[in-house]
């Protein structure tokens, strides 16, 4: 039991938390009871958003162990962000959901063989269904998508259901201010005492907090409780006014003057603890309040985080010299080649590869894609006809028997490579991989490069070719065989015909990370390969000397958001494959766009005030995001990113 739970005006919640922890610790990992308590049913929330612990006044961070980054992020995030098209339909963030509106419905799904509960389903007002898997399955890999309710597994520890949740999106700890990162993990302990359900939630977010945040919530069994499953029809409408659909509401550092507004009617509360911080939530802080000791000198028995964010970020972009494949949607697979994300379309027409990775990975990429293509396209399929009843098929037997008694046909060839920029990890494998493909060319017609031989078409914006080649008589930075063979110069380029049953459109993102950036939209599969425009593990690498600008990166992300559509409640739908990191959806791209816009506006404001680059770096305008996007070794450093932004904003 942490003594700090008794401070900060959170006594009832802390006592409940104490009760649960004490009972759990008193028994050393008791075995699962023969019949676990039944938690299914309709439950009524006893402490809801009217309670200021769930919806505090703006600027009230009492009891939250914020670090400086968490404080800055919360101070500068505007509640109006809910009005943006990408967020209007989002459900409550997972840490807040138990304190959200209405009641909770808990359903159970049983294994038909063992009759044990295999999945609990939690549902709240306007929420998504939240499955909690009880069947022992592992959590997905770190490069799998994050969702609003995350991925949850449960186990009984005595009479308490312990739920572990990962893969959550960024959001808020409480409504109206305190923010969380998308790297938080959540552990819940759910205990039923007769008609009372107690939920103790431990939110572990070391990006923004110095120790896990603990709170408890109680529900009462109530058969009359209802859970409104209201649909959301908001995303078509502009809630924030104005005419800029890409508007990102936020406060510049120091601009949010309302943070202490609430203290005008609660003037007995000193300002310091309202800013949160681990040292203000333990009883030792009373000595600081009396002036006997400085807060900075206090020693408090804070808890350690069990959330190894550095490891999880590294696993979301594994630099292990191997190739990992994640099926995405329709024809499209995400290929992670030593940390660089590629996309591959596989189908009856052949193979299309977006980017080729580094040269060192070419053989492994080829082997992985061939194996995937073989299993996807050439596998024997179920027998749906027989004898002479197979229209359009040659022979007297069925295709199924033909596939079984002979070797399967070879996979269709690699036909296209699309380069999203001239960055080494995007074009490095062009030379080796393109020569394994085939693109039919009429003699002397249709190719940007003559006599290219039987190789795949390599499509890119013409500035990519300019970066890789050189005028006659000069030495090109890249060998001829690696150059794009088919370039475009317009705002977009459609492949001339369907590929694997769908339109493939290459969009130019002008002056983004370079002057030759593209992203690729697979229109039927509903997948976008974003290249270096988007990463979930790093700030963008903006190459100013090659025409890159921060406004171009933000513009490219906005173009992606214009094309992408969420499936339901700001989740899923069009999937976006980032250049590095986990598979993402519209809300993830919006979160990245929001972060870049906030930092761009901060740097621009400081520059317009006459500050030098060194002064802007010293002001640390990226501080609240550095723990998230500059943590991974090899990611773009805050100084390098600030320099790129500073030199390209006006």
């Amino acid at each position, binding site marked *: 039991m942490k003594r700090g739970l008794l401070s900060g005006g959170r006594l009832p919640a802390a006592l409940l938390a104490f009760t649960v922890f004490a009972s759990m610790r008193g028994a050393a990992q008791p075995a699962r009871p023969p019949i676990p308590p039944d938690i299914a049913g309709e439950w009524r929330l006893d402490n809801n958003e009217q309670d200021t612990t769930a919806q505090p006044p703006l600027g009230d961070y009492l009891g939250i162990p914020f670090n400086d980054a968490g404080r800055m992020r919360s101070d500068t995030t505007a509640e*109006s962000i809910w009005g943006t098209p990408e967020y209007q339909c989002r459900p409550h963030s997972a840490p807040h959901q138990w304190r959200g509106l209405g009641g909770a419905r808990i359903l159970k799904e049983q294994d038909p063989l063992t009759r044990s509960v295999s999945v609990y389903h939690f549902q709240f007002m*306007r929420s998504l269904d939240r499955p909690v898997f009880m069947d022992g399955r592992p959590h997905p890999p770190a490069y799998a998508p994050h969702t609003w309710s995350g991925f949850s597994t449960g186990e009984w520890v005595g009479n308490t259901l312990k739920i572990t949740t990962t893969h959550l999106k960024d959001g808020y700890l409480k409504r109206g201010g305190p923010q969380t990162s998308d790297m938080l993990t959540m552990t819940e302990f759910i205990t039923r005492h007769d008609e009372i359900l107690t939920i103790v939630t431990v939110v572990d977010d070391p990006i923004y907090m110095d120790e896990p945040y603990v709170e408890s919530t109680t529900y009462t069994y109530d058969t009359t409780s209802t859970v409104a499953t*209201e649909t959301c029809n908001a995303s078509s409408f502009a809630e*924030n006014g104005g005419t800029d659909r890409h508007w990102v509401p*936020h406060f510049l550092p120091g601009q949010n003057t309302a943070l202490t507004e609430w203290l005008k009617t609660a003037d007995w509360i000193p300002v310091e603890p309202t800013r949160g911080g681990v040292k203000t939530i333990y009883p030792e802080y009373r000595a600081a309040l009396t002036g006997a000791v400085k807060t900075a000198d206090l020693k408090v028995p804070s808890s350690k985080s069990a959330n190894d964010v550095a490891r999880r970020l590294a696993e979301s972009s594994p630099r292990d010299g191997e190739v990992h494949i994640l099926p995405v949607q329709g024809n499209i697979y995400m290929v992670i080649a030593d940390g660089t994300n590629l996309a591959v379309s596989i189908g009856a027409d052949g193979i299309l590869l977006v980017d080729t990775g580094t040269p060192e990975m070419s053989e492994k990429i080829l082997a992985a894609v061939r194996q995937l293509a073989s299993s996807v396209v050439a596998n024997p399929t179920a027998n749906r006809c027989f004898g002479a009843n197979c229209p359009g098929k040659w022979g007297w037997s069925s295709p199924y028997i033909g596939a079984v008694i002979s070797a399967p046909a070879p996979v269709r060839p690699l036909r296209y490579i699309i380069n999203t920029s001239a960055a080494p990890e995007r074009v490095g494998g062009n030379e080796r991989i393109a020569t394994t493909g085939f693109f039919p060319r009429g003699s002397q017609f249709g190719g940007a490069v003559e006599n290219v031989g039987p190789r795949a078409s390599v499509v890119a914006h013409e500035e990519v070719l300019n970066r890789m080649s050189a005028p006659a008589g000069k030495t090109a930075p890249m060998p001829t065989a690696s150059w794009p063979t088919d370039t475009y110069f317009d705002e977009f380029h459609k492949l001339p015909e369907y590929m694997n049953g769908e339109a493939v459109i290459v969009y130019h993102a002008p002056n983004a990370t370079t002057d030759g950036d593209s992203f690729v939209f697979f229109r039927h599969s509903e997948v976008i390969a974003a290249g270096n425009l988007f990463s979930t593990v790093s700030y963008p690498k903006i190459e100013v000397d090659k025409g890159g600008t921060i406004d171009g990166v933000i513009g490219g992300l906005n173009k992606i958001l214009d094309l992408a559509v969420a499936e339901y409640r700001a989740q899923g739908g069009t999937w976006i494959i980032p250049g590095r990191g986990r598979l993402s959806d519209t809300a993830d791209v919006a979160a990245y766009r929001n972060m870049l816009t906030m930092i761009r506006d901060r740097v621009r404001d400081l520059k317009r005030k006459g500050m030098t680059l060194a002064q802007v770096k010293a002001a640390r305008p990226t501080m609240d995001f550095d723990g998230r996007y500059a943590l991974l070794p090899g990611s773009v450093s805050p100084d390098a990113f600030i320099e790129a932004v500073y030199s390209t904003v006006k």
Partner: protein
Amino acid sequence: MRTFLLVIGATAIAASAAYAHHSYAATYDITREIKLEGKLVQFVLRNPHSFVHMEAPDEHGEIRRWAVEWAGSAQLDAQGVKRESLKVGDQISVTARPSRVTGEYRALMLSLRRPLDGFTWGTRAGETVD
């Protein structure tokens, strides 16, 4: 008058906290009130909240498109406000709480008046945004 409107506004905030998907108090500056006069360009009647979009000048006199957040369709229906109650092109006068974010043209409805026929909302008991 200003004090009266502020009291109405505070009541609305307290009552509405349990229903909105976002926090009113965090979104809007409940200590300020603005007046917008202009042309209605869109009326979005829906749940959980309706929106009146209008073109009206900002504090610098520039015409902006404002999104004024209003009550949900069920609440407005109970108060006699129907889809046909407001028409595109109507000249309207609105008092509202402004957004806390500089440069954002959204506001929370306190009252709406159409001078042409005297249609009003926000002056009778219960006419607050829940």
